[in-house]
């Protein structure tokens, strides 16, 4: 186990090292004319469920409340992207599930609490999602299975303005 962790840390350093050496670039930008206001879709308002009789054959690990896969939210400390070791088994389980189900895709949605500036929080949310993604990649998931999105402080889980609310809002949600 400790060798594995060292390996993980080593890989993480390698990854960080690489990103530093990128050179400046000039490239074209995609400019789309959206004169006719593109309608903002809101597809996540309803979700359908199957009700097949033989539940044993369709029962997914994902639905097992006892499985570490049932952990779908990772919480963070203030202004931090560090993942608590409490989540190790959950992240391992999700990574393994992705490895065993290569056609499964997830979105890691990063969030921040409302304190400080909105744009910094947007970047912070993404850094959190990226930290989770990096661990998952090291533990068996592949990059194209994981999409990152950050909402910064724009989508709080709790609308309150106190420590308890903020704690609940500093999070990465794992969405299958």
């Amino acid at each position, binding site marked *: 186990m400790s060798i594995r962790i060292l390996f993980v840390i080593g890989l993480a350093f390698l990854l*960080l090292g690489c*990103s*530093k050496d*990128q050179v*400046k*670039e*000039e*490239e*074209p*930008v*995609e*400019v*789309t*004319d*959206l*004169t006719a*206001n*593109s309608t*903002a*879709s*809101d597809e996540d*308002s309803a979700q359908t469920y199957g009700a097949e009789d033989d539940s044993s054959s369709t029962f997914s690990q994902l639905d097992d409340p006892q499985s570490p896969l049932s952990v779908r939210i990772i919480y963070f400390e203030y*202004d931090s992207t560090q993942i608590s070791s409490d989540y190790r088994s959950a992240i391992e389980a999700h990574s393994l599930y992705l490895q065993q189900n290569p056609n499964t895709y997830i979105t890691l949605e990063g969030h921040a609490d*409302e*304190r*400080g*500036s*909105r*744009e*910094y929080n*947007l*970047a*912070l949310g*993404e*850094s959190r999602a*990226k930290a989770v993604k990096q661990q998952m990649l090291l533990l068996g998931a592949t990059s194209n299975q994981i999409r*990152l*999105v*950050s*909402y910064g402080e*724009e*989508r709080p889980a709790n609308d309150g*303005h106190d420590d308890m609310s903020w704690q609940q809002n500093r999070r990465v949600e794992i969405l299958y």
Partner: protein
Amino acid sequence: MRIFIKSFLIYFLFVSFQAHAVLDIKITQGIEEPIPIAITMFGWSQAGRVAPIDIVEIITNDLARSGRFNVMDAQDLPQNPTQFDAINFNDWRKLGMENIVIGNLVLTDSGNYDVSFRLVDIYRKKQIAGFRIPAKPGLLRRVAHQVSDIIFEKLTGIEGAFNTRVAYITVKKNKTKKIHTLYIADADGYNAKMLLESPEPLLSPSWSYDGKKIAYVSFEGKNSSVFIQDISTGKRVRVSKFEGINSSPSWSPDGSRLAVTLSKDGNTEIYVINLITKSLKRITNHDGIDTEPTWSPDGQKLAFTSNRSGNPQIYEIAINEGKPKRLSFEGTYNARARYSPNGNSITLVHASGNSYHIAILDLNNGYINILTDGPLDESPSFAPNGSMVIYATTGRRGGQLAAISVDGRIKQRLGLHQGDVREPAWGPFLK
């Protein structure tokens, strides 16, 4: 009293039509010795008919709201002269009044208006300023603000910023979702116009220097994109929709480029989009967070927020060179910089303990001067004359806007009657 009743009625009518949009601006703290001024009733060429707008009321509200003037109540005016020769200087002197404004509104043969006014120094019995401004019917409010600007500048030495606009975002909660709306309004809260409405978050409105376009971030389509919208036509273009974050637009002073934050290369970095050649240039290169770029008024540099030192601080980078220089050193949280119009200082969000304040960083000596009480203040930007900073503050009713003078002596609250309001951006002078 009459002015009060009238303003209340007009205000009430307005609210009933655009209840969710109107900003109600109240001064909560002014300077200790405001300049006394009287604005007398303007003459009106069509006596017997109702004037199209109450110019005196608009000027009165502008000056009073600035916190620098004590405007005499209409009922206390000893006379309402409309010509210089009709001013009874003794009457005014007895009341201790130092400055009066007299004027006329004339409907011309072409159906337009002429607004003329004189600002008169009572003790020296001299005219300080006198102007005649022609106006099309739809532009009378703007002309009234121009009159306020001239009076303000003559008496305070500071360029007036009444004839300007403000952009902001409101959020209304339905039963199931939130509605985000981008508005622009005159600096006195009137003429609020909706530019965009979306069920997904909107943020970071940024004015082009000519005041004709607004760039912003929208999450429609489940990811952030940067748009540029033409204010008069409503037409818009999506200028950035890369994988990951597309955010924090800031215009170059010449309008040819837009600085943005992108994470397409794996990490939030600052880029410059050339809007003419459609090319993209990467500016920063660090594995920490780099975001919130803002263009210096001379167009040579970008200030931005980076946590490369371990916590967010403000850095500055020359666009053509590329070695960032750290600007902020006090405290563990300094973010979201905006330059003052003269480039000598930066307004930013500064945290001390658990409280977030608006502060000004003096670029000559590096000192940070905290202006607001917090606890959750954000999104500061300078008025185009550099005298005030507008910002968002979280109170009992949710997000509200406020403005504070750069010396901290004048405070205004710009509230909505319902809903959250946030992300204010003060637009440039209207030409």
